[in-house]
């Protein structure tokens, strides 16, 4: 009789220890994943900033070519100041999407100015813009991948139990967005 009691007690203790160990390791893994997602988000923000920082250069270059497109230049200035004042992720994403819109319209306008298109400085700026957009789409994809892994883990049994009691919230995904600048420097035919 005594032996059985001791046996049951021993098993109980072992289970308790195992559960506590599992709890800690799951919690820590969620924390790590949460941090990874934040890190990937920071990369996205870096690229938003980088893109906005290219705009003054672009405007300066364009102004050198007596181009009378006041409206679009004002739109650039507005989009850039919107990016500067944006504090939350949503506001930043919104500002960047506005900038994408202005850039697309700008690409159309530029077609009317062959001398500008031939300008070396301008071509380099276009390369930089296209490069930044490419980096942005990579950063977004990395963020989405990290967010997906995290979201799966906080919803799966039994980790969802730990996520719930510690208030881990699911992360939002990016919607695929079309790039404004086409990479000019790829084809050599």
């Amino acid at each position: 009789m005594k032996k059985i009691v001791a046996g049951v007690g021993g098993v109980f203790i072992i289970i308790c220890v195992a559960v506590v160990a599992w709890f800690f390791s799951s919690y820590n893994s969620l924390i790590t994943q949460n941090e990874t997602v934040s890190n990937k988000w920071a990369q996205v923000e870096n690229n938003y900033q980088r893109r906005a920082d290219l705009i003054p250069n672009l405007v300066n270059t364009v102004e050198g070519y007596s181009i009378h497109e006041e409206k679009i230049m004002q739109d650039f200035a507005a989009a850039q100041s919107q990016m500067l004042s944006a504090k939350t992720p949503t506001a930043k994403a919104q500002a960047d999407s506005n900038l994408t819109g202005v850039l697309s319209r700008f690409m159309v306008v530029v077609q009317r100015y062959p001398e500008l298109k031939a300008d070396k400085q301008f071509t380099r700026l276009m390369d930089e813009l296209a490069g930044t957009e490419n980096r942005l789409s990579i950063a977004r994809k990395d963020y989405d991948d990290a967010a997906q892994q995290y979201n799966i883990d906080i919803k799966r049994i039994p980790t969802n139990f730990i996520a719930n009691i510690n208030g881990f919230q699911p992360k939002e995904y990016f919607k695929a967005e079309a790039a404004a600048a086409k990479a000019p420097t790829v084809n050599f035919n």
Partner: protein
Amino acid sequence: MKIVKYVLLCVFILSVVTGCGSSANDKNKIALSSSPEYTTYVQDRANVLDGKTKEYLEKNSHELYQKQHVQITVFTIKSLNGADIKEYSNKLFRQLGIGDKDTNKGILILVAADDKKARIEVGYGLEGSLNDGKVGEILREKMFPSFKKKDYNQGIVNGYNALIEAINKEK
């Protein structure tokens, strides 16, 4: 004896319950065949480079890595099979692990010969000396003129030298 059995059972149940199998991330990989001919610095899979060029690239890349921990890899393929060259080159760059992990000073020169496309992928650590504008200029002015004439050897060497010059200028 019984306790041991219980413990084993508990461990088994626990491992099944918590075993959140980590999914392999193979969907992002590019399938690459291996060959002793391919090295860290030169992988001429489209067979467009001659022995002299490969030797030149090999020797200089090795030296560059020894001296400055900058890794340049030249990679040629016949076709992207419809893939986007920007995505392809980024995947390849990560898959090959070009450049040391902590400094990220790596460069991938990718040429898709039949598609007539080329791209230079630059790691974070070199973006200061090689921004997208500079890289675009090297492609347009140093490499594409030779590529158009199907002279891949000259085009690669010209671009390669221009990249090294830009890196050295920044120091």
